[in-house]
């Protein structure tokens, strides 16, 4: 067991891990971050996406030990005070059905908008293409992401 420390959703946290523990398992089982979903186990679907130092990673193919000293953001971190305008937009557009892909999708979309606040439809598709959704046909998700950009412009 090795002790690792990191900033998780703005808080300093530490835990003990085996060298072969996956990040997804440690975050879910030891730190209670159940928003992160395990669905394919090989980085294909994006349901376990978290932001590591602001960059989207697949927590099912990353060792927990690699997160030592890093900063991790999950949907729990986005939802602490009030919802982000992206989350609000997802609600307004009814963007999810079963919702299992939602946390990973929201993290990928958060990263996308952070890097590119005014994406085109093609850029949204490209930016989120690593996140699979079996229910929605993606269209309501695209609309929600594009609308965030629009409403933020309206606010200015």
């Amino acid at each position: 067991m090795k002790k690792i420390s990191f900033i998780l959703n703005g808080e300093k946290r530490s835990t003990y891990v085996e060298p072969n523990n996956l990040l997804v398992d440690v975050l879910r089982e030891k730190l209670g971050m159940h928003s992160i979903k395990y669905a394919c186990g090989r980085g294909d679907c994006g349901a376990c996406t978290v932001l590591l130092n602001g960059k989207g990673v697949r927590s099912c193919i990353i060792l927990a030990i690699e997160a030592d000293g890093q900063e991790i953001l999950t949907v729990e971190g986005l939802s602490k005070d009030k919802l982000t305008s992206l989350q609000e937009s997802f609600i307004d557009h009814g963007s999810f059905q079963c919702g299992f892909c939602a946390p990973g999708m929201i993290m990928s979309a958060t990263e996308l908008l952070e890097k590119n606040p005014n994406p085109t439809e093609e850029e949204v598709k490209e930016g989120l293409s690593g996140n699979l959704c079996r229910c929605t046909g993606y269209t309501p998700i695209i609309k929600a992401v594009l609308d965030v950009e629009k409403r933020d412009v309206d606010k200015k």
Partner: protein
Amino acid sequence: MEEFKFIGKSVKRLDEKEKVTGAAKYVDDIDFGPNLLYAEIIESPHSHALIKSIDTSKAEKMEGVVKVVTGKDFPYKFGLYMKDRYIFAQDRVRFVGEQVAAVIARDPRTAQKAAKLVKVEYEPLQPVFDPIEALKEDAVIIHPDLGNYPHVPWFFPKGGTNITHRLKLRKGNADKGFKDADFILKDTYRVPRYAHCCLETHIAVGLLDYSGRLTIWASTQSPYTQRNLFADALAPLGFSHKDIRVIAPYVGGGFGGKAGVTMEIVAAALATTVKGHPVKVMWRRDQEFYNTYMRQQVVTNIKVGVKKDGTITAFEMANYWDAGPYAEYGANVVNASGLSATGPYRIPNVTIDSYCIYTNLPAAGPYRGFGYSEMSFSVESHMTRIANAIGMDQAEFRRKNGIKEGDSVAYGAPMNPNGLLEAIDKVADEIEWGKKEESKDPNKAIGKGLSIFWKAPAMPPNVTTSAFIKFNEDGSLNILVSGMELGQGYLTVMAQVAAEILTVPIEKIRVELPDTDRNPYHWQTVASHVTWASGNAVKRASLEMRDKMFEVVHAAYHYDKDSLYLEDEKVKCKLHSSFELPLRDFVINGIETKDGTYRGGAIVGSGSFMPEYTSAKQNPETSQGGHPNVHYTVGAGAVKIEVDKQTGKIRVLKAVEAVDAGKAINPRNVEHQIIGGLLQGLATVLYEDMRFDENGKILNPNFTDYKIPTFLDIPDEIVPIIVEVPQPDGPFGARGIAEHTMIPAAPIIANAVEDAIGIRVKTMPVTAEKIAMAVADNKKEVDDFLMIMKK
């Protein structure tokens, strides 16, 4: 037209906030505490073999292993419509991946390691993978004891063969119908297996507590049906229904794959061996492919006769379904589609034979569309070819022969009110049907395809559902039902139904997920019937509450009950305009009268619903005389594609689908079903492609090799269209639409490919490879079919 305040409005989803914050709990998100145990399954490496011996001694000795369980511990059969499977394999295995034994350990890694130490000795038997081969006289028999299996009365298994169910349908006189025809077209189509690919894999956690109660948490579409099957299968251990509780939190996708019971029974059985300890069984992605249900493969021979004017005179069909080795649910898919395989056409002379056949591929069963998605490819491809052959416009051909209210369906019952013609007109308009378009790229061709569809809920005749509703002190509501929120928007729609009657706004309503200890009975969330059936139960419960409130107001104020009505969360009176009593003021604590006593008490409502006009008592030789289906939902789809003439690559420029919702209680939810379902269907025809090796082992059980659509694969434009011809016994006229949205997808692509480049592909999927090969070989028809790789 009646004015509604909540019905027909695209209110926000009730579950959306939980889902966007990660608060929504799925089974694996529940904390089961430090006593939680983990199961690892020992699976068969053979597609067909006898089990000679199982040695568990080494695994049992490993530190951290609590128990090793084999078929000997549970010699019990189960099955929804036919009992043909065991919890663990008994004397033989019938597909690669079948559960033979399980190790229960303190942690998953130990369970996995110990599972490798369980030694199973097999004697391989000859397998059969092709449904046609499995029908041959000398075919290996997969269930030697089939003749003795218990089953529902409307199944006709044939002992000594691999036929687990045969449905015969005869209407009119097909021979005469073909004599009357001016043109007859006969052909064979083939549809392979597909996988549901829910993002959440199957998971179930079982706990037998020290008092002897068995609780199962499951990702399921069917909490009550599961409880029933658990109680039935585990009855030898002394369980009755009240001893078993199924809790169903949010589900990460179902699509039919989580209907009935598959792996959940393993968790239930294992729990009984480790009292006091919850035990978790969770499928990895590969197990999700091969050990739940797949969609069935089907080979269809079809022959249709028409007059010169396009009138269909006769329809003859034989369907050979590959159900895998366990057909307990799949046989009902065959039954449902066999009754309705004509599609939504008015045809006087019909002969349909449907065979549900055992093979040694993994078990197959329900998948969105329940037989209609599978059948639509052959019927709608064939109808297009016939229209083209007699020089009639395809849309016109479908308008002419499309079924109307009152026409008799293939089993003789009258067709319900429906908007089929309106759906055809609307999609034809939207896709600019009849307008030829040229690609700007000379290497590409543009084509359009059209198809129509119908589907009835496939249910036993006495399926029932119920609802409880209770008020809270502030006049807010909790609705208790046992339908599942699979993502279709069920919770929201139930809230809208109650809101409309009780005038309580959606924001003040919670709809609770199923727990069989608490929520009332609902059969299972399948067949796209919950809006209709559960909606009726919630409506009845709401009306009961309204009547009780009027009763209380009458008791306290002596106003005539008939003069009372609800508006904006208040009871009002037509005769006393100044009277208005907010619901929150009396629905719990009653109304105080002049002498200081109170009238009333907590207002609760209950409602149940069962169709009382359905019957499965049809003549087994003809399928005539019964009324197996409650009603059909109809619609039409169309597509515009661009095909690369050399590579065969298809780009979907525009897809349109119209569905007759009766009354769209939440129009946006309906549109979202169309968009999602259509893409799921397009994927089956464009690129999802399941392969098995020569031993029947699936080769691509993952998302790298089995391609489901990504953001980059969606059509350039999708137009959902809602048609509303009310269903007389639906809540506010509503009927179900969710599965239906997938049904037209496959044939519209095949039809559009032929329109674009003159190549007819008669096997799914319609891949770029098949088109490119046909172009290279100068072939106009493609029969190539590859699901099982040769050595």
